[in-house]
């Protein structure tokens, strides 16, 4: 439960302040609900492994919750690596245009 409340504070839509008059999907109440459902689904997807055995091909991938941990960690790594590369490789979007029109 504590995890859930922590997540529901996460600013899902930064820069916008959808009021109650906005589309159903954009209301803060709906977004809170969606986070709850999402959390339940996440927990369920791991718990279901108690019912259905994940065979796995190499031992490791048959561990309890392997998919969850591996999926999460590899995504965090990829985002951080992209962020790191971006420090060196990002340029203003006019970079090529300015250069090619000189």
């Amino acid at each position, binding site marked *: 439960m504590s995890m859930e409340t922590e997540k529901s504070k996460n600013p899902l839509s930064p820069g916008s302040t959808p009021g109650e008059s906005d589309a159903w999907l954009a209301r803060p109440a709906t977004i809170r609900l969606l986070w709850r459902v999402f959390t339940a689904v996440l927990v369920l997807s791991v718990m279901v492994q108690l019912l259905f055995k994940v065979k796995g091909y*190499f031992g490791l991938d048959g561990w309890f919750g392997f998919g969850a*941990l591996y999926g999460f960690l590899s995504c965090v790594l990829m985002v951080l690596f*992209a962020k790191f590369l971006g420090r060196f490789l*990002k*340029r203003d979007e006019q*970079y090529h245009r300015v250069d090619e029109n000189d």
Partner: protein
Amino acid sequence: MIEFLPPALIMLIGALLIGPTRGAWRSAVVLLTPLLTLVAIWQVPDGVVTTISFLEYPIEPLEGSPVRRLFATIFAIMAFAGGLFAYRQAKWYELAAAFAYAAGAIGVSFAGDLISLFLFWELMALFSTVVVWCGGTPAARAAGIRYAVMHLIGGVILKVGIEGVMVHTGSIEVQPMLAVNFDTWMILIGILINAAAPPISAWLSDAYPESSPTGSVFLSAFTTKTAVLALILLFPGEPVLIGVGLYMVMYGIIYALLENDIRRILAFSIVNQVGFMVCAVGIGTQMAINGAAAHAFAHILYKALLFMSAGVVIYRTGFNKCTEVGGLFRTMPLTAVCGIVGAMAISGFPLTSGFTTKTLISQAAADQGLVAVYFLLAAASAGVFLHAGIKFPWFVFFQRDSGLRPKDAPWNMGAAMVLFSLLCILFGVAPELLYRFLPYPVDYQPYSPGKVVLYLQLLLFSGLAFFLLLPLMRRTNTITLDTDWIWRVGLRHVWSSGESLLGRASALLSASRTRVMTLTYGRANFYFGGQESRDGAPRGVFARAWPIGTTAIWIALLLTAYVTFYYLD
């Protein structure tokens, strides 16, 4: 067996007819040509159908086999849905070019020899460039030129390889080979350039997003997937491809994560998905080849669907960056839902075509005991969900409210999206419909509970990572440098510094020439005199009046010397 036209020819005739026809006739040509082509494709029997002799080489422009028919089929289906999507909005010449481009792809699918393969290959390069140019902006023109240059270079490399194989083996058959010598390496590199393999993947993400909203739908389908087919036919089991494929998979994810342009995100994810297929061809077992072929088939459906969804957004709003759109689900529900179906399919969610085809490749890697490949592909599957599965729909249709309230898709665009959405789900729910057309018999059950649970965990927790890391993914108005920096910026700097170096050298040269000229002129003037000497100025040394005595002494000296030498002899 009745005589029928080769499928590629039907498509080409259709492309030619689009120009001269008008109104309802043109619509009929656009919609019926791919269907007629599809019928013709399924008339092509296994084995070589026609042989023409050309310069003593047996040309086999039409050779059937299950994998060839499978690719030609999806190309024809793609041409139909693309035509439906575009025929009321696109310029007629864009449609004609796109159909000729499709004809090239279908021609490559059935090419039984390397010469006809090359011809259709170049047909594709030619007309895909026209499709890029149909973007109509100065940026599209420039990107089209870079695209054409890259593909012409690729074509030349491929041709060098083909000529080498022709000369050294005497055979021009399209048959499995390995990259073992110069010739086969050239062919492999030529094909890999079209597959957007490293280090020159940049042409794809450079050109495709510059085309029109309808053009990019066609572009997403043909070039890279024909390259995959060519790899299946020519290089099954080539070990180099495993590494190349894995690199492409990771490159696509990382660059897509950094990207702001909606269609460029999708373009990077093409490289990512083709990476899965290239890797599978490298593994080379029957399971892997089935996986590559099935994944190419499914990929064309969902990637075109994603490009259609993005195309509608750009067509309706005129914006093409994540930072400019957002919250569009309010007024574009159909486009949003179809985009989400495409996003689920590319991520390989269970019950979509991505799941039933991508897991074939993972299975093949596991069967061969390729531990690293298996785990990297699993990480990549999570990464696909991250960069395409959530990022694309989230930033376009949700994110924040951009205040834009565009209309939903025009009916024909909507129909094309619904058609492909249904196909994405159909092949996910009933994979045997696709499995039965794969090149090898399929003994594989995608829906084991364990596999479904594993994939659900991978994908759902990838989604969790996305939302938790959202602050790190704020879109910025930036581009990301790629290897094309070398020729777009680096080489130009080398060129201009070379130019300035030459300029300095030439200035130096002309300065010293002036010095030499002035010096020579001064000396000549000193000895022979100049024009001004008439006005009483001192004449040149040899032009002066010399005293007679000096002359006599010189003559005496010369005579003495003559006599002396005469006697010495």
